[in-house]
């Protein structure tokens, strides 16, 4: 069942990339949709694998993003490159965020 979803300003847009929603796929459709819309208070994982440089303004922005989220919606970080890791460590912000160790893919865990 091919279903794509995209977070937009207007909401979560879920596109059913299938020609039919019929008896043959109804259950799978429901299951996939349940996953996609599950837990509105779910966590946000910020993947920084492509960010090689982060300064104090960038760090402040990441902190600001955490503060935008309600308390039951944690912001977690993954794939920090060494220079970015250093900034988090020196500012002790590595204690404030859950930072996923390299290799582990946080999106795999429910």
């Amino acid at each position, binding site marked *: 069942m091919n279903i794509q979803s995209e977070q937009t300003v207007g909401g979560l847009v879920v596109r059913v990339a299938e020609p039919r929603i019929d008896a043959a796929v109804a259950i799978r459709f429901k299951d996939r949709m349940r996953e996609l819309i599950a837990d509105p208070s779910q966590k946000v994982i910020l993947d920084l694998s492509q960010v090689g*440089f982060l*300064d*104090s*303004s960038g*760090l*402040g*922005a990441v*902190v*600001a993003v*955490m*503060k935008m989220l309600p308390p039951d919606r944690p912001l977690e970080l993954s794939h920090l490159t*060494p*220079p970015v890791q*250093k*900034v988090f460590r*020196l*500012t*002790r912000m590595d*204690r*404030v965020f859950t930072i996923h160790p390299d290799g582990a893919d946080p999106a795999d865990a429910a």
Partner: protein
Amino acid sequence: MQPEPGDLQLELDSSPLAVRGALTEMTAYLRGRCPEEGLAVVEIVLAEALNNIVEHAYVGGSGRITLCLRAHAGDVQCCIADHGLPMPGGAAPAGRLRLPVPGGALPEGGFGWHLIRSLSQDVDYRRVSGRNYLSLRVQAGQ
């Protein structure tokens, strides 16, 4: 620090994009002169010092910044000059980290000077005839 042949000398506008550009040139200049890890340290230190000038010294206006750099025996000596506002209290900030208090709001700023102090040595700030001079050294060789 008197300019010598082989130094990098840059003049830039007080804008975040000009800072980016200067950091790119600086990185190109230092590549080969010190290891990648040291280079990353110089980049973050200079980013903080330069962005502070843009945000605080030239707040509400704009001006020129000059940057000079010398790599020598694993050290990178940097000096930065501007003619914006002086540092508060006439001295470079101590860069003490406001540690997050449980339940308290997390700071979104105030990390800059902590990073500069953590990553550099011999920080010297002077205000001379309406200009700011900052010099510091980064041990980029290890």
